[in-house]
């Protein structure tokens, strides 16, 4: 080895940080929750830059909806956030109801709450399972989560005919009414679900590895969260009390007694716990809704589904979807199809601050942070 060489090595040693490794994580990656990609620059294993790249599932939902009738868009909304078709339906029909001024019967509102909260429950259970999967828990929590999810999907199927793509809500009400037997099944399920949440918590809530992996990781400050338009459990984990069910109550949410859990640290653990606590609150809402559900029609017979032509104008309807504020913005030009149809996808906007949360952290943290954001690519890319 020559002296010059040695000097070069010493210089390299002074530098000491090593080269930057540019890795693209995704679009095919086990824990990017679909075809999401992060262009990551690594120094060793530390992330020094992270650029989210998406659009790999951009399937032109908005364009298609602008070409179709108002009714035809409902089954497409199922496929936005494909884990939560019921709440997607609700967001859309809410916007149409606002746009066209359609009233909704009370019984329909109650059933909407029931299906929406069941949806929220299964979304959160699944998310927690996926999050732990990202942490390498070899599938067990995910299996337990899906075990319960299947029970909920069974209910959805016997109500609406499909497991995932329910296509159940209609502007002005619902597609079909539920039977008393179905409600009884829901009651039975709701009575059994707390046991699952308990089991889930026992499995991992106090697990040292989980706490070490999540506490203090991916901290999101209150100010940044608000400014970046983060919504949903992620926002509340950063101790912002903002839940559209409380702030801008839609449907009959104003009638129910439930609480909004808030986190103080804004880290992954808080986000994880928000989901678990919200599952419990959902069960509370479900109990009340099941108690209070009135008899009556589910649809105003005057409502036109086929060939709806709202007056020219626009409306923005938003709901608290499991992932955050799901909004639909519609502009009508008086014709049978929306002139502009726009989805406010919560998980896409929640991704805005992904880089801020990941900088300086480990590769392993990145997947956990991403997991805690709870994205669904169908919604991010639409």
């Amino acid at each position, binding site marked *: 080895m020559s002296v010059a060489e040695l000097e070069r090595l010493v210089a390299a*040693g002074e530098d000491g940080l*090593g080269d930057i*490794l540019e*890795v693209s*994580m995704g679009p*095919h*990656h086990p824990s990017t929750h679909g075809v999401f990609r992060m262009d990551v620059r690594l120094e*060793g294993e*530390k992330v020094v830059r992270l650029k989210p790249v998406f659009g790999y599932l951009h399937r032109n939902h908005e364009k298609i909806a602008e070409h179709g009738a108002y009714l035809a868009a409902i089954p497409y909304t199922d496929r936005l956030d494909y884990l939560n078709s019921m709440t997607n339906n609700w967001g859309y029909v809410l916007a149409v109801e606002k746009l066209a001024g359609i009233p909704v019967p009370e019984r329909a509102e109650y059933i909407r709450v029931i299906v929406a909260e069941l949806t929220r429950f299964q979304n959160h259970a699944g998310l927690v399972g996926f999050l732990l999967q990202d942490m390498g828990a070899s599938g067990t929590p995910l299996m337990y989560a899906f075990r319960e999810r299947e029970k909920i999907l069974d209910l959805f199927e016997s109500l609406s005919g499909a497991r995932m793509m329910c296509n159940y809500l209609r502007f002005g009400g619902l597609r079909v009414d539920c039977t008393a037997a179905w409600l009884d099944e829901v009651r039975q399920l709701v009575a059994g679900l707390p046991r699952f949440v308990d089991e889930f918590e026992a499995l991992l809530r106090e697990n040292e590895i989980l706490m070490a992996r999540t506490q203090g990781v991916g901290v999101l400050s209150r100010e940044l969260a608000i400014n970046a338009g983060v919504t949903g459990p992620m926002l509340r984990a950063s101790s912002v009390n903002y839940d559209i069910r409380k702030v801008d109550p839609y449907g009959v949410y104003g009638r129910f007694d439930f609480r909004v859990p808030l986190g103080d640290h804004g880290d992954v653990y808080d986000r994880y716990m928000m989901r678990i606590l919200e599952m419990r609150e959902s069960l509370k809402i479900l109990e009340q809704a099941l108690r209070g559900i009135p008899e009556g029609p589910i649809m105003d017979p005057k409502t036109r589904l086929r060939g709806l032509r709202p007056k020219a104008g626009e409306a923005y309807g938003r709901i608290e979807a499991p992932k955050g504020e799901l909004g639909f913005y519609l502009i009508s030009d008086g014709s049978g199809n929306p002139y502009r149809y726009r989805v406010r996808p919560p998980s896409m906007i929640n991704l805005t601050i992904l880089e801020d949360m990941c900088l300086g952290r480990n590769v392993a943290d990145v997947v956990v942070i991403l997991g805690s954001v709870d994205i669904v690519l169908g919604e991010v890319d639409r």
Partner: protein
Amino acid sequence: MNIPQHPWWTVIALLLGAVAFGITPLALAWLWAKVFSPQKPGAEKNATYECGLESKGDAWIQFGASYYLYAIVFLVFDVEAVFLLPFAVAFTSLSAGACLSMLVFLVLLAEGLVWACQKGMLTWA
């Protein structure tokens, strides 16, 4: 056994056996490919996998120094273990004084470790 057997012959045989155990299926697989299922390399197929994208930049880059430190500390403790082993074998018949001197040896190293710890050097970057 009446035949003088050096134990290392068994080790060598085991080594050969293990290598054969590894090579045989590889050879079989090669044979299978020859006879039935031809290998079909291709520009895309034999490209580096990177999440479905074309790999950009080389993987063989200069790595950060944090790994190196661990290797050195490991080396130190490996050597320590090598000295510990004869001591451990003789331990039952050693005097307390000898044991104390080994304790000193250990404490010296442990102290170094604690010092490194306090300097934050054993915190993974």
